[in-house]
């Protein structure tokens, strides 16, 4: 497509131009007359501002192309002008449904670059909170996915339990969603004492609630009709198209980063990786439901084995001194001042750290140039890569099935557009 040189000219695209524009690795079918339909960006089932261009033969999808970028906020560019600690707050805003996973991925990359490791207590707290975030993210997924498939009541139940988890986050970090709780070298502060009873209570009632959701969906004939055999993707295709997370495991590929390349002490926990082989929407649904149960197992083990000790590493160049020391220690005042005005320098070099977010592989590529700000930050976000396989899943499906397929790969647009 050629750009108009006149900046005031309104660009109107013909169908051919649109086809040329969206011919991304997919063949355009024959010479027959197909209808072009633009779905979104303001469509309720696109989970944000995703625009899909559909080529339809009757009600069957011949071709599909996602058009993204409506939520692009230049997070990677902005982070190059922020110090390592300050850049953290931007990671919350990418995958706003599980900010803990983003925080963890970014913080682990910073710590890897610095060559430090968090204390055992901080690592266990990080795991507990990340798994709570996984449950809360899957709850939003289940609620909205069911809403897309016209099951209204599931949504209300899911948000009830999610609210409880967000209350725990607020108790811990002072924020419900944009937590920024993990910091380089440890945590913002230690857990409050109400934390453990609240999580114990959650662990007590949650298994029966998951059973309730399953009672509403798992054997529901309408649910089965809408999800079984829809959006099938084979194991080979899923790997070749870079799918990760429950979407990949729904196709029978056993790859979970928590098991394969453990980080933050995940090797100490006993949990299973749920696996399904059908590769359809229903298989992905089953994987996520089972994952919630496994997350509860991890949280329980974490609480039982929560070690005592400090939550921050003993390095005043990276971690600010506690408030109580500022009153009587000149050294602490100097460190505090230096940290908040200059930050810390990270060595030259680049690292790549991936974590298993609720949606799949969330990875952070970080290049330091020896100064207090990163020279390049890049996020490999699971929703963005999973979206690439939407066309192969939707080909030959009905328009109504596309809605189910989008729901089943669980996209978050804030993470796609960054």
């Amino acid at each position: 497509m050629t750009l108009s040189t006149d900046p005031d000219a309104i660009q109107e695209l013909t169908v051919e131009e649109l086809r040329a524009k969206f011919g991304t690795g997919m063949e355009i079918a024959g010479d027959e007359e197909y209808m072009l339909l633009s779905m979104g960006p303001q469509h309720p089932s696109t989970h944000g501002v995703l625009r899909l261009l559909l080529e339809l033969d009757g009600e069957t999808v011949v071709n599909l192309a996602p058009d993204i970028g409506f939520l692009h906020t230049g997070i990677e560019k902005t982070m190059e002008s922020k110090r390592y600690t300050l850049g953290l707050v931007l990671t919350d805003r990418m995958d706003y449904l599980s900010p803990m996973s983003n925080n963890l991925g970014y913080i682990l990359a910073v710590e890897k670059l610095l060559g430090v490791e968090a204390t055992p207590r901080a690592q266990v707290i990080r795991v507990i909170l990340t798994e709570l975030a996984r449950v809360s993210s899957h709850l939003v997924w289940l609620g909205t996915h069911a809403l897309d498939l016209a099951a209204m009541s599931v949504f209300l139940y899911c948000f009830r339990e999610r609210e409880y988890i967000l209350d725990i986050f607020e108790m811990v970090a002072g924020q419900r969603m944009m937590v920024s709780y993990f910091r380089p070298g440890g945590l913002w502060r230690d857990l409050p004492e109400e934390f453990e009873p609240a999580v114990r209570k959650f662990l007590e009632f949650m298994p029966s609630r998951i059973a309730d959701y399953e009672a509403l969906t798992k054997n529901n004939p309408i649910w089965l009709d809408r999800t079984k055999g829809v959006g099938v993707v084979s194991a080979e295709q899923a790997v070749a198209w870079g799918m990760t997370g429950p979407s990949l495991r729904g196709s029978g590929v056993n790859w979970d980063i928590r098991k394969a390349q453990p980080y933050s002490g995940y090797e100490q926990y006993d949990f299973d990786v749920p696996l399904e082989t059908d590769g359809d929407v229903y298989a992905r649904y089953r994987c996520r439901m089972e994952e919630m149960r496994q997350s509860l197992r991890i949280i329980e083990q974490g609480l039982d084995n929560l070690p005592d000790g400090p939550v921050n590493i003993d390095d005043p160049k990276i971690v600010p001194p506690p408030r109580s020391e500022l009153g009587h220690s000149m050294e602490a005042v100097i460190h505090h001042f230096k940290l908040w005005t200059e930050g810390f320098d990270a060595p030259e070099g680049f690292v790549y750290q991936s974590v298993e977010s609720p949606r799949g592989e969330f990875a952070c590529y970080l290049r330091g140039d020896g100064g207090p700000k990163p020279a390049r930050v890049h996020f490999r976000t699971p929703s963005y890569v999973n979206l690439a396989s939407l066309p192969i899943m939707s080909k030959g499906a009905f328009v109504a099935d596309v809605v189910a397929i989008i729901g089943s790969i669980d996209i978050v647009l804030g993470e796609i557009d960054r």
Partner: protein
Amino acid sequence: MNQDQLVVDKIKAAYPDVIEDVVDFRGERTIYVHTGQIREVCQLLRDDADLQYNFLSDICADDLLPDFPRFAVNYHLYSIPQNHRLRLRVWAEDPEDGPETVGDVWPVATWLEMEVWDLLGVRFKGNGSLRRLFLPEDWQGHPLRKDYPLGYEEVQFSFNWQEIDAKKPYAKE
């Protein structure tokens, strides 16, 4: 045998001159590959029975502005059967004449290369669908480059009032 070493040996056996450098940092191995042969190396790494790098995690580029070559493209590979990560890094001296696409090795690469082109302007040879992905169709420039300003409004002073006023987007009489 050490997987890190095995990769280097296998590449050297097939393409003797293709490796420019091997760097280890924080337990991660980076292999600098000659730009012209990235596709062949990727094909080898994916198809070799002992390596099986069947999963392409990510493609991202770096802008190292004062230096030459200015651009570097990283390929983050992962082998699900061998449980091993690897980074290939190639230099792109001229962003308009970048490395060859690896879209026929891993289909997802087409999609990942689009992002690199949109934000950093490194053009991949043979990728026919490079287009504006995140930015509007008529956007000028590539924002993740180091010479691209972060964006702010210029302050008008009496000596340059007219000059800056002419560039402001609001309607004029």
